């Protein structure tokens, strides 16, 4: 039984990492109805930039600030160069545009900082200790803690602050928000910067475990089922679905995998997503869209 719990806990901790990526997607979708395919590449860029600055012998805090600056610049360019001409276009067009953005970020990031895989060492202790027979890694716990703090901050930001309310208004209706005097582009800018910060956290979390390399942008593909299980525009949904997916895929891999040849981690989250969507087409916590002719 303790083995079961160990697998479960490991899965949950991995799930937190998925949730970090899914959070970025959910944020942008919530605030601007843009489904941002570039979220994974933003994490890659953040990881690459951080490693790049650390290699220039910057202290950690300075490197983090510089990385933040990179993400802010990216947000500016995205909003004012790519999204601004597309304001009144259907969401599909915006989705496709972020598709192009994903390629752009990937190409530019890799031409500046190189394509080879790099290690990222932040000095977070990686000790394992056991509580009642179940092993925990202090490293995973650190990121779980960061994710919880991030979640609380984001929920507070969206529900309580003035800017957060403006962002929710923008997500409800672009034109109505504009007409009551909310600057649309500035609201989007804030969203993309916040998504950039989430991308930094995700990039650091995944970069330290997997190494910073091209395949980091694929973690977006693992976060997508998390996103649709939770509902595209739900921040708590992203976290809860992340936990469900992380636990589910790890349990499936360990207990089901041996019977079918293993490696089912790659698609099991999608299978879970299909099952969930069959019963709840807008995810567990997503806003249901009522359409009229």
């Amino acid at each position, binding site marked *: 039984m303790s083995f079961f719990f160990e697998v479960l806990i490991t899965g949950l901790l991995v799930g937190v990492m998925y949730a970090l990526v899914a959070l970025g997607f959910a944020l942008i979708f919530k605030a601007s109805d843009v489904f941002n395919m570039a979220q994974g590449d933003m994490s890659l860029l953040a990881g690459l930039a951080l490693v790049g600055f650390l290699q220039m012998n910057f202290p950690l805090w300075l490197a983090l600030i510089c990385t933040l600056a990179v993400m802010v610049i990216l947000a500016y360019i995205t909003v004012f160069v790519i999204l601004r001409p597309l304001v009144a276009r259907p969401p599909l067009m915006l989705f496709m545009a972020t598709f192009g953005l994903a390629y752009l970020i990937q*190409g530019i990031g890799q031409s500046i900082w190189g394509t080879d895989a790099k290690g990222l060492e932040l000095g977070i202790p990686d000790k394992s200790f056991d509580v009642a027979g179940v092993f925990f890694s202090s490293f995973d716990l650190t990121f779980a803690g960061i994710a919880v703090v991030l979640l609380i901050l984001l929920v507070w930001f969206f529900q309580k602050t003035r800017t957060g309310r403006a962002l929710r208004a923008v997500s409800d209706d672009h034109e109505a928000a504009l007409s009551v005097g909310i600057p649309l582009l500035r609201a989007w800018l804030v969203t993309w910067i916040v998504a950039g910060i989430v991308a930094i956290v995700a990039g650091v979390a995944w970069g330290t475990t997997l190494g910073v390399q091209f395949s980091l942008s694929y973690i977006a593909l693992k976060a997508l089922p998390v996103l649709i299980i939770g509902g595209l525009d739900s921040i708590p949904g992203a976290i809860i679905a992340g936990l469900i997916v992380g636990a589910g895929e790890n349990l499936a891999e360990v207990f089901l995998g041996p019977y079918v040849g293993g490696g089912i981690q790659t698609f099991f989250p999608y299978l879970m997503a299909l099952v969930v969507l069959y019963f709840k*087409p807008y995810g567990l916590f997503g806003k249901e869209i009522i359409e009229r002719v």
Partner: protein
Amino acid sequence: MFYRECGNFKDTYARDMAIFPIPLDRYGFIVMLIVAFLVIPLVASDYWITNIMVPFYCFGLSAIGLNILAGYAGQISIGHAAFMAVGAYASLILYGRYGVPLIPSILGAGVVSAGVGVFFGLPSLKIKGFYLAIATLASQFIIQWLIVHWKWVSGGVFGTVETPNMQIFGWALDTAVKKYYLSLCIVGVLALFAKNLVRGQLGRNWMAIRDMDFAAEIIGVNLYRDKLIAFAVATFYAGVAGSLITFCYYGAANIEEFHVMVSFALMGMIIIGGLGTILGSFLGAGFFVLLPIGINQSMGAFMKVVPSDILSNIETIIFGGLIALFLIVEPFGMARLWQTIKDKLRLWPFPY
């Protein structure tokens, strides 16, 4: 010889329904066919035929499929490359293992792929929009996993099946030119079929579903049937394209050739080429196939050998930049540019 509708009397129903109502278009198309069938095989080197023209046709065909699904029926699918993989393996198993003749096994691969496609299209009945787009990614990963782990299909962990020697009625297809003709003929026929499909009742239904699905349902479009047909047709095209590209270009079915990045690239092709156009599928595919070569040539002017990582980075940047640029400047892609040129030509030499 002006590019005009006037003076071009449509005195039969057939002429009224013609794909190219304007004579100059018709002549242009015939010239293109002559170039494709006669000039290219005579002039181009084997390298050009095998490495550029054949992939161009095959990706064009696959992009037509995706365009029918995403551009006409409005069901975004980001797992299209997986159906190419299904087609590739299905045709090799049919042809190599069961000795089905070549053409039936290529088309049969399309049918197998269409069957799988309908299965993965089932979620589209319940979910839509971005939820569906992500759900289609499931097909990519499930199919990839199945092909690698199902020993009967791939014969091992690496998932590679070599193509046997090809022959039609005992006539061996061994040179590059013969393979070129095989892919050209199949692609040509299927492209024509697609063009007519989207001009007919089914195409209209798809466009109605794309524009507003519940409104389409109210005016009597059978939503479920037509969505599933769209999935079937799209994946049929993907399957045929996958089997053709395996037979005529790759030489072995390998799951790595149908990675999720290929699905993304196909999506990029139809955006750059033009959503909801058959011509655009080919323009996008041509752009995508020629881009790396173009960059290589232009960079080659400055340095002797272009390092592969720089090449691939610049390729990604240009590809991404162009997707964004096209969406901003010309959301309907290169096909719309061509349309604009034709509209201008119709008035030339007058301004309006």
